[in-house]
């Protein structure tokens, strides 16, 4: 009986403390709801609306009819229309589209020629999911209305996978994994490093010295930039040695992108450290940001397959942009200049979040 009362005392005390830690309490309700929403929306293997560009060099009635049938299939969403195959490849390399449809000028003649494919579909094959979806287009029939039914063929579309012709998963996963690993460590390290000093009382000493907020914050994150770049090297080496993941683009570009991403996460870590009071809370908030970064960044599921709301959330996360950068540089040999939008987003994100963090961090206790 005594044991039971002691047990009860522990349980009551624990519940009481839990109910007073508002952040933990929020997590108890918030995490399952957010997780179920994220998983429910993001995990969609029936990918549709792949961003597509069309180069219609034929411009005939039949070719236009084919394009509108493509559109009606809902597998693709035509976002751009260009003149040449080179323009299609450029869009693919820059990550603007996942699929390029090339309709050659002799399209009408090819349709009746049994030996030649009428249409070429260029696919960013770095993501095997996208490739398998694109393969469903292969069997679309193309024929003149006048052609008899028995002459309608299903082999007139040629699929040309780019960047990952062997369809190996690590080729797609490793560049993304770099983002996830860097984010997790960088964000957590900085958040905990500052919160720990607050917990131990070091911060009260520090803020009573002439050291400025900026010196304190920048000084705290500089060592972690080094650690982040080192991590980047480790992942790249292992990816190449163990999984034969190529680095087709420039290593320097990769490091430039990596530095921007590391800075973004360190800024985020600093911001977390200004809103949490214990290391435990800092870890909870990190997990809270980590979840959508894994699920909504395009790391696990193709971005195109997610509903619009999930895509908006994904666009906010730095990991989404970094993964686009790494896949672009490593797999599609894109120079960082062609991926400018994602790079500048990371820079802007860092500036905004860093400003917020510095504003919240005052050298006062009230």
């Amino acid at each position: 009986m005594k044991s039971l009362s002691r047990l009860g005392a522990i349980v009551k005390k624990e519940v009481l403390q839990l109910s007073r830690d508002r952040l933990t309490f929020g997590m108890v309700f918030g995490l399952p709801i957010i997780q179920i929403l994220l998983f429910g929306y993001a995990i969609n293997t029936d990918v549709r609306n792949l961003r597509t560009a069309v180069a219609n060099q034929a411009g005939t009635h039949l070719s236009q009819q084919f394009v509108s049938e493509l559109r009606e299939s809902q597998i693709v969403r035509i976002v751009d229309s260009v003149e040449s195959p080179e323009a299609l490849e450029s869009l693919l390399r820059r990550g603007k589209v996942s699929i390029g449809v090339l309709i050659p000028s002799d399209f009408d003649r090819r349709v009746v020629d049994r030996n030649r494919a009428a249409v070429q579909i260029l696919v960013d094959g770095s993501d095997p999911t996208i490739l398998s979806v694109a393969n469903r287009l292969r069997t679309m029939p193309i024929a003149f209305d006048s052609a008899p039914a028995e002459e309608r063929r299903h082999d007139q579309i040629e699929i040309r996978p780019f960047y990952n012709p062997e369809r190996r998963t690590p080729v797609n996963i490793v560049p993304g994994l770099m983002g996830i690993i860097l984010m997790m460590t960088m964000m957590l390290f900085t958040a905990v490093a500052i919160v720990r000093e607050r917990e131990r009382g070091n911060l009260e000493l520090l803020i009573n010295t002439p050291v400025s907020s900026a010196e304190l914050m920048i000084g705290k994150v500089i060592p972690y930039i080094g650690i982040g770049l080192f991590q980047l090297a480790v992942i790249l080496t292992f990816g190449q040695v163990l999984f034969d993941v190529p680095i087709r683009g420039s290593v320097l570009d990769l490091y430039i992108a990596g530095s921007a991403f590391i800075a973004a996460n360190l800024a985020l870590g600093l911001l977390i450290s200004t809103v949490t009071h214990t290391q435990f809370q800092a870890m909870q908030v990190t997990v809270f940001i980590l979840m959508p970064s894994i699920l909504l960044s395009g790391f696990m599921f193709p971005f195109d397959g997610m509903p619009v709301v999930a895509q908006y959330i994904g666009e906010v996360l730095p990991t989404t942009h970094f993964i686009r950068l790494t896949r672009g540089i490593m797999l599609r040999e894109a120079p960082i200049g062609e991926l400018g939008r994602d790079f500048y987003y990371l820079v802007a994100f860092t500036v905004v979040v860093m400003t917020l963090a510095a504003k919240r961090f005052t050298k006062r206790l009230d």
Partner: protein
Amino acid sequence: MPSQYAIEARGLSKHFGDLRAVSDLDLDVPRGQIYGFLGPNGSGKSTTIRMLCGLLTPTFGTADVLGTKIPGNANLLKPKIGYMTQKFSLFSDLTVHENLKFISEIYSYPASDRKRRIDELLENYDLIAQRKQMAGTMSGGQKQRLALACAVLHHPELLLLDEPTSAVDPQSRRDFWANLFRLAESGTTIMVSTHYMDEAERCHRLAILDRGVKVADGTPQELQAATGMHIVEVIADDPYAAQAAVNGKPEIASVTQLGVRLRVLIPERYENPIEIVNNALASENVSGDTQLATPTLEDVFVAVTMFPEEKGR
């Protein structure tokens, strides 16, 4: 011409929600003296010290600390003050020497003189043997010496010490105070909060704080002279019975037992304190010797915190 006061505060107040941690505090701390801040836990000592070094913004009131206005740009003040927190706040996972070196760099202490200054501090604060020890593994007294060494490294004009001796043994406390006197002699102004009476007695001047209000200030002698109370000491064979006999009498303000002795506080407006106590003892048939005693700071503390209206009648 700098003011003769290191700290001049007027109407300093700090409210946390409904809690008035410090109310309408006036302070004048002369330069080069040790100024004590005496009060029980929660009386607003730490809050006041934190306001004076710019860590907390006063709800009302102002202060002038070494010529810097509070509230104002506290950054101007930081190089001139040394601050010792109540809790040990140096880096547990750095050695004694590494901690001192870090502090010297943070305060931009001249690099050419750094080594000499650190060696001097290690010597003065008896930390030579601990030089390479992790700060976290040291005893309470050693930690406190390191904290003081770090607080004075940059030769601050003003030292703010928040209950510096609450975690150390009596010998360490004595040594600590010897260090404070040495610093005061060399011109450093020291403001130290404490709840130990014997420490308060060593200060040049002190203020007594009770629930955020200053209830008395002056030199220890002035305070002892102005309690507004007679102190009657009773030595009784049965101190419990004696206490029961005097307790509750309308003339008697307070009774404190110290072993076999009782200290009885009677407001000065009664002219015959010995008689009052003797009568009280006689009425209960308790025997005991009574004599008048001089007030200690503890008596002052009881008098001003419990019966402020009797003071200086």
